[in-house]
């Protein structure tokens, strides 16, 4: 399969009051055409910032992409001028967010908000955009599209709003859809509907999905390829089956073991001790070392590199680089 997007050494930093935080630290991965890639990790691991960096929307005070390249359909997104990037955004790369309730403008009608990208990117006129918007509302499974078209966000439920967000996202038939925790704020039964819908759009539209989530269940259900992030770095990646069946990195293993699974109750849950390190005081080491059961002296002093292990699986862990330990 051809790659659609290839990210190479992406780094994003935030300059905060207390110091510099490297939220995304030399991250490289690719998304192939028609593939769903999941980035999984806990809060603060840099998964959302990675998405915002791709969109060119890291602009919070002090935030800045300061290295790497994002090759998308032959162009480096980080080196495009603002207008070209804007033409790609919402058009070839679209995005949906975690909080559907606050992601739509509260004082604009739903219809208007769906029409905007249609008019900007597809250059439809108002009339055509309106017709298309109503089609889109129908496509995301909402009855009475005409009525919804004229309503305001606060009149709809969270699940409906997320459908509207999806309608906006797929309106210009993007090649890549970035979904940042799209179901975290929703109930399980609604989550199932939204995930089904994303899968349908992916299959019918041939688009790729970059799904960002903390929920390993969602990952297993949706992903073709999985990337595990920890403290701004990728610690493991691989095909979904290999990664779930043979996790290599102690963090990945820990995550999988610490999640209770319906119908597979254990007497005691495994838990990873400690907590995520302070991003302000990271030192040259494996960032997971002080929570790791297999911590070795080298883990405290040197950073492991992400290495191929065969079968397309990669991990950044000294356990798998024993040959190099004594160099």
């Amino acid at each position, binding site marked *: 399969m051809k790659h659609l997007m290839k990210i190479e050494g992406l780094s994003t930093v935030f300059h905060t009051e207390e110091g510099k935080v490297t939220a995304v630290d030399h991250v490289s991965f690719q998304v192939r055409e028609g593939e769903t890639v999941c980035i999984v990790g806990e809060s603060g691991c840099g998964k959302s910032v990675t998405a915002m960096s791709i*969109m060119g*929307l890291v602009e919070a*005070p002090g935030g800045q992409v300061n290295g790497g390249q994002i090759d998308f359909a032959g162009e480096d997104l980080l080196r495009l001028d*603002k207008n070209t990037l*804007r*033409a*790609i*955004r*919402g*058009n070839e790369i*679209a*995005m949906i*967010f975690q*909080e559907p309730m*606050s*992601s*739509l*403008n*509260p*004082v*604009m009608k739903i219809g208007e908000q769906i029409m*905007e*990208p249609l008019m*900007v*990117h597809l250059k439809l006129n108002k009339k055509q955009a309106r017709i298309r918007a109503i089609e889109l509302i129908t496509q995301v499974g909402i009855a009475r599209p005409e009525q919804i078209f004229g309503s*305001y966000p*606060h009149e709809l439920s969270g699940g409906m709003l997320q459908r509207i*967000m999806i309608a*906006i996202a797929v309106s210009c038939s993007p090649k890549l859809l970035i979904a940042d925790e799209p179901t975290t704020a929703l109930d399980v039964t609604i989550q199932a509907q939204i995930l089904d819908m994303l899968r349908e759009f992916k299959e019918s539209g041939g688009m790729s999905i970059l799904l960002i989530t903390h929920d390993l269940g969602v990952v297993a259900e949706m992903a073709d390829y999985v990337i595990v992030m920890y403290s701004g770095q990728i610690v493991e990646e691989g095909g979904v089956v290999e990664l779930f069946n043979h996790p290599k990195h102690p963090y990945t293993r820990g995550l999988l073991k610490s999640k209770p699974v319906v119908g597979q109750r254990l007497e005691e849950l495994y838990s990873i001790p400690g907590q995520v390190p302070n991003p302000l005081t990271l030192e040259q080491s494996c960032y997971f070392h002080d929570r790791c059961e297999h911590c070795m002296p080298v883990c405290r002093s040197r950073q492991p590199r992400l290495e191929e292990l065969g079968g397309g699986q990669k991990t950044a862990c000294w356990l798998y680089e024993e040959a190099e330990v004594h160099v």
Partner: protein
Amino acid sequence: MSTYLTKRLLYMLIILFAASLLIFILYASTPGDFITGNIKLTAERKAELREIYGLNKPVLERYGIWMNNAFHGDFGYSLAQQKPVLQLFNDYIWNSFLLAAVSTFLTWVIAVIVGVISAYKQYSWFDTLVMVAIFAAMSLPSFFIGLFLIKILAVDLKWLPPGGMITTGSHATGLAYLKEVVRHMALPVVVMTLLGLGSLTRYFRSNMIDVLKQDYIRTARAKGLKERKVLFRHALRNALLPAITLVGFELPALFGGSLIIEQIFNWPGIGQLYMKSFGLRDYPLLMGFTMFIAILTVIGTLLSDILYRVADPRVRL
């Protein structure tokens, strides 16, 4: 909506009633009156006049009469000017309105523009400059800045007239009259705009900063909209919405004149009328004026509420 309105109106009336009582008692206990202050009158004439104006009656009875008349649309009779208070208001209020309307308009336009730009470029040197200017504007003693500008621009440089609405003894008409008024207006308008600008700019700036952090702004950008559109179509609407409540609060200022500015610039408005009457202890006029402002304040508050409810789709009645 109607039940809400009824309740609000009722509360409004109660507050106004209490305010009227308070105002009346305050003025009634204010020392001296128009007659005492007039040294030309004999003691008998004074007593006679008191009788005529009902000033010898007990306070509460006088209040009753005052209120009764007010309900019939009669706000009393100015003793100094020998004219009905309402007629005097009508004579002066429009001068005040002219001044207030122009400066309010300017204040809002400048505040919105500067506030939006400043918020968009938060932490830039422009923003810092604006912040300092905002604090400066909020810290100006109104009468002092008025005097200061008169001294420099009118007295020393002689660019603009120092006060009044038309040049003394002028009989200009038509366009010449208009030009004269505009020249006289310039300084008081500048001062009033300056005084209002600080807090309003700050209000828009902080509103806009809050709005720009919202998720839907990120969504708008993610859609690939132009920055101008994100700012003015998506952000500004949300930032302006709460400002609608301020429109109502401007009401007393629009029609109530400005005591200080009109006094300093000798502008023949209702504020100056009040100041003049205050020196003369012309109670009917003073009470009428204070009550008038109180009414405007209460109506303004109600108006703010209604406007907000009309404008915000999220608030339903």
